[in-house]
C-alpha cells in the first residue's frame, strides 16, 4: 500500500512542479483533494450511475470555499490566485467532471457574469449568497439550434415598461434544474446580445431535466424554456453588450477546464498504474510487460504536457498577460489529452475497465462532454487558427 502511495505522488508531480507553486497554492490543492477523497470518491460511481448530483454536498462545498474563490472578500471570495483556482478545479475533477462542472458554472459562468457585467448593487445582492451556495446559478447561452455559433441565437428580450420580456429556449444548461437564478443571454430590440439575471421561479420560466445523457451523469443538465418571462430593468447586466460578454465568461470557464481535465487524467493514470502493478497475468504483473509500460508512459507524458501548459497559462493569467486564444489552445489540447488518457486507462483495466467500480470509464464518458462543451475541439482550433494566421475560417 505504502509503495503505491509513493508512486501516486511521483505520478502526480513527475516534473516537480510543486517547486513552482506557492505554499498557499499547495494548501488549496491539498484541502480540496482531502475533501474530494473523503466525500466524493467513495460514492462517485454510484451517483454517476444513478444520474444524480449530490445536492447535500452544496453547503459543504460552499463552506470549503469553492464557489467564486477568486473574487474579492466583500463578494464572498477568498482572492485565490488563478493557479490556486486551477488546482482547485483539478482536484474537483479528480473526483468527477460533473462535480467540477457544477463549480465551474457557479463560479466561472454565473458568478463571473455578475461580477464582470453586473452593477455594484447586483454584485452585493447575489455574489455573497452564491459563494455560500444559498443561490445556485446557471448560464443560458447555448440553444437547440445555436451551439458553436451562439451569435445566431433566437432568444429575444423585447422592451416593455419597466424591463423586458424574454422568449426562447436554451439547451445543455448545467445546473438548470438546481438553479435559483439563470444568467440568460438574449437579443434586445436592436439585436444586441445582453445578459439578464432571471429568477427561475419567474412566471413563464420552466426547466426540463435532460435524463438521456450517457456522459456527465453526475451533473444536472437541463433545457430552459422562457415563455414571455418578464425581467425587470434592475436585473439586466448593465455592462453586457454584444457576443463578447458571454464569450468573456466562457474564457473563465475554459480556463477552469484546462486545469480540471488534469485531475481526470491524473486519476486515470494512477488507477491504471496501480492496477497494472497488482494485476497478474502470465505469472507477473502486467506492469512488467513492454506493451503496458509503453501505454502508461504515454499517459504520463500526455499528463505532464497538460500540467506544464496549464501552469504557464495560470502564470500568464496572474501577470495580466493572458490572451484568450491561449486559453482556447489549452482547453482544446487538455480536454482531448485527458480523453485519450482515460481511454488508455480503460483499456489497461481490461474487463474491469467497463465497470464504474473503477473510475476510468466514468472519466472517459464524462470527458466526451468536456471535449465538446465550452467550445468544441474544432471551434478552439479555429479560434487559434484565426489568431495565428489572421484569417477567419469560421
Amino acid at each position: 500500500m505504502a509503495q503505491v502511495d509513493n508512486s501516486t505522488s511521483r505520478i502526480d508531480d513527475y516534473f516537480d512542479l510543486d517547486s513552482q507553486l506557492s505554499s498557499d497554492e499547495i494548501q488549496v490543492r491539498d484541502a480540496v483533494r482531502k475533501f474530494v477523497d473523503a466525500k466524493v470518491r467513495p460514492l462517485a460511481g454510484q451517483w454517476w450511475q444513478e444520474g444524480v448530483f449530490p445536492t447535500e454536498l452544496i453547503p459543504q462545498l460552499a463552506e470549503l470555499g469553492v464557489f467564486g474563490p477568486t473574487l474579492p472578500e466583500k463578494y464572498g471570495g477568498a482572492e485565490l490566485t488563478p493557479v490556486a483556482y486551477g488546482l482547485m478545479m483539478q482536484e474537483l475533477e479528480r473526483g468527477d467532471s460533473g462535480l467540477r462542472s457544477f463549480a465551474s458554472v457557479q463560479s466561472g459562468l454565473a458568478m463571473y457574469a455578475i461580477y464582470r457585467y453586473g452593477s455594484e448593487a447586483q454584485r452585493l445582492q447575489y455574489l455573497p449568497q452564491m459563494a455560500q451556495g444559498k443561490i445556485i446559478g446557471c448560464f443560458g447561452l447555448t440553444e437547440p439550434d445555436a451551439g458553436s455559433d451562439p451569435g445566431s441565437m433566437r432568444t429575444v428580450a423585447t422592451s416593455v415598461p419597466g424591463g423586458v420580456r424574454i422568449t426562447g429556449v436554451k439547451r445543455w444548461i448545467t445546473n438548470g434544474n438546481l438553479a435559483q437564478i439563470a444568467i440568460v443571454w438574449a437579443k434586445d430590440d436592436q439585436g444586441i446580445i445582453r445578459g439578464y439575471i432571471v429568477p427561475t421561479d419567474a412566471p413563464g420560466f420552466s426547466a426540463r431535466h435532460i435524463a438521456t445523457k450517457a456522459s456527465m451523469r453526475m451533473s444536472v443538465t437541463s433545457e430552459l424554456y422562457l415563455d414571455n418571462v418578464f425581467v425587470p430593468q434592475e436585473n439586466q447586466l448593465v455592462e453586457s453588450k454584444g457576443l463578447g460578454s458571454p464569450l468573456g465568461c466562457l474564457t473563465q470557464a475554459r480556463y477552469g477546464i484546462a486545469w480540471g481535465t488534469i485531475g481526470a487524467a491524473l486519476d486515470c493514470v494512477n488507477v491504471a498504474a496501480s492496477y497494472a502493478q497488482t494485476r497478474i497475468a502470465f505469472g507477473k504483473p502486467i506492469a512488467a510487460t513492454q506493451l503496458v509500460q509503453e501505454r502508461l508512459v504515454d499517459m504520463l507524458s500526455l499528463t505532464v504536457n497538460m500540467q506544464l501548459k496549464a501552469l504557464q497559462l495560470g502564470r500568464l493569467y496572474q501577470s495580466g498577460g493572458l490572451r484568450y486564444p491561449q486559453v482556447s489552445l489549452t482547453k482544446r489540447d487538455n480536454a482531448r489529452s485527458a480523453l485519450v488518457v482515460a481511454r488508455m486507462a480503460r483499456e489497461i483495466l481490461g474487463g474491469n475497465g467497463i465497470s464504474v467500480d473503477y473510475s476510468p470509464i466514468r472519466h472517459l464518458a464524462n470527458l466526451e462532454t468536456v471535449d465538446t462543451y465550452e467550445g468544441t475541439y474544432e471551434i478552439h482550433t479555429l479560434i487559434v487558427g484565426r489568431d495565428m494566421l489572421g484569417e477567419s475560417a469560421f
Partner: protein
Amino acid sequence: MKILVMVKQVPDTATRIRVAEGNASIVTDGIKWVINPYDEFAIEEALRIKERLGGEVVVVSAGPQRVEEAIRQTLAMGADRGVHIKTDEALDSHVVAQALAAVARAENFDLILTGKQAVDDDAAQVGPLVAVFLDVPQVTVVLKLEVDAEHQRLVAERELEGSIEVVELPYPAVITAQRGLNEPRYPTLPNIMKAKKKEVRVESLQALGIVPNVKVRTVSLSEPPERPAAKILTGDPVAAAHQLVELLHAEAKVI
C-alpha cells in the same frame, strides 16, 4: 483562554521510508510532510475551546524551514498565530521540550495541548517533559476534555486498557491528545488565504537560551525485512472465498 498547541511535522504516514546512507537518518527527498495526526486532534480541541470560551490559540513547532508549512496549515485551520523555533540540528525529545517550554513560559498559557506521540519516532516524550519543565500537571492520552473556566479546572477522560479513567486537575496543565478526542476540521480556502496574513514569529534555540545538549543520539536505522508480495484473489466471490480458506490453511497455516 490562552492555549498553546505544540505540533511536529512528520513524514506522511503513507510515505515509504528509506534509510539514508550512513544508516543514521532517512531519505527526505520526495517525502510529503504533514502535521503529526495526533497533534491535529490537539489543534482541533484548542479551536473548539476557543470557540466556546474565547481567547487565543498559538501554535509552536521546532525544526527546519519546512516546518513553517505545518504552522501555516494550523493557521489555516483557525489558529491565531505561530512560533517557529527554527533549527536544522538533529535534536532529541529533551532539547525540543526545553525549547517548547521556553516559548510556553514566556507567555503564560492557560493550557498546553499536543498529540500523545509523534508518528515518526513514537517517543511520546515531549508533552510530559514540557509539563515537568513548566512544573504543571499533565494528563496523557486524553479522549475527552472538559474545561471548567469558573473554577479553573479540567476534567479529562483517559484511555486505559479496557477502561476509561476520569481525572480532574487544575490548569495551567499539559494535555496530550488521543485519536477520538474529536474530528479535526478541514482547512477552508478562505482560511488558507487568511492564514497568509497571520504572524509566524521565528525564534532560535540561542535566543531562547537553549544549549542543544543532545542526550540521545540515533546510532543506526535499518529497514524491516522485505515481506513477500501480497496475493490478491479476484473473480467469483464464492470461488475466491474457497481459495482464501485453502491458502490460510495450507500456506499461512493460521486455520
